[in-house]
């Protein structure tokens, strides 16, 4: 009886410790997501681009870039909630690609093929950005042509929303692809890897181990990311 009681106490303590650890990890990953949200490097590069536009007298481009940038930050910084709708998240990522296209000569062809019926479902903010950033900076821009496609599709399957984000960039080497989600890659491989690893952790801490990201890639032909989140309608 005493043994059983002690065992039970031990299990409760273990569970409490795990809960505390999970809460700490979630706070940590939310903080990192906030850093990605502000993304100083992206902001600095975009302001630098606007400055060059302005110096070259491209007034219409300056207006467009400032408008897109302000909308981009408004979508993430204006509200406290860390969860948004798929519609907002897709708008956010479209604005991000528009800015990158201004920097990189409109060579990124971005296609969103997500049914309207999914737009009101919830998704953590900034889920797509690190994935798409990686596709652009380490996939498409690494090609000779610096030109390529990114496609986002989605569907519902057994109360899970599955996104498929594919690019036709240079692909990722087999030894590297397994390390993307574990955070083992060094800084050399780019900051977006930290963002990807953090996004994966955040999704798993929020929703459980069966959710998150999985990567498959073929060197020379592109990368595919499967993203799974529970299907929950935004209130």
């Amino acid at each position, binding site marked *: 009886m005493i043994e059983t009681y002690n065992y039970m106490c031990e299990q409760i303590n273990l569970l409490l410790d795990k809960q505390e650890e999970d809460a700490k990890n979630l706070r940590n990953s939310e903080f990192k997501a906030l850093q990605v949200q502000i993304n100083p490097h992206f902001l600095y*590069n975009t302001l*630098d*681009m606007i*400055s*060059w*536009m302005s*110096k*070259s007298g491209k007034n219409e481009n300056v207006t467009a870039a400032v408008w897109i940038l302000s909308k981009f930050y408004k979508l993430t910084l204006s509200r406290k909630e860390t969860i948004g709708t798929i519609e907002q998240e897709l708008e956010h990522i479209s604005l991000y690609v528009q800015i990158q296209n*201004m*920097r*990189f*000569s409109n060579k990124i062809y971005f296609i969103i093929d997500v049914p309207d019926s999914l737009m009101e479902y919830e998704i953590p903010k900034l889920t797509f950005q690190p994935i798409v950033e990686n596709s652009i*900076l*380490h996939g498409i*821009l*690494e090609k*000779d042509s*610096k030109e390529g496609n990114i496609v986002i599709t989605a569907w519902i399957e057994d109360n899970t929303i599955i996104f498929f984000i594919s690019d036709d960039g240079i692909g990722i080497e087999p030894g590297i692809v397994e390390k993307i989600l574990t955070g083992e890659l060094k800084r050399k491989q780019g900051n977006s890897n930290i963002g990807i690893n953090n996004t994966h952790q955040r999704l798993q801490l929020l929703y459980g181990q069966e959710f998150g990201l999985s990567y498959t890639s073929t060197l020379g032909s592109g990368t595919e990311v499967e993203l799974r989140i529970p299907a929950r309608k935004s209130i």
Partner: protein
Amino acid sequence: MEDIDAEISGGEAEMKILIVDDEELTKEGIISSIHWDELNIHEILRADDGTTGLHMARKHRPDIILSDVRMPRMDGLVMIKTKSVL
């Protein structure tokens, strides 16, 4: 690649510069905001990453290379290190 990225302007070739940057607007901005003639630079070459930059540096032997650091394929530091051991 080289035909697309290389742009040679000016008349007599006294000094030439190679500008390496992955952002077209930055390259355009630099080119339009400096009075190259006053600096005795009569030829401007452009490349959009370290790999193309290195290739062009080997081929055209510019007097000056102005390079960004973070770029796809090959960054500016690797390009300069590789160039300097030639």
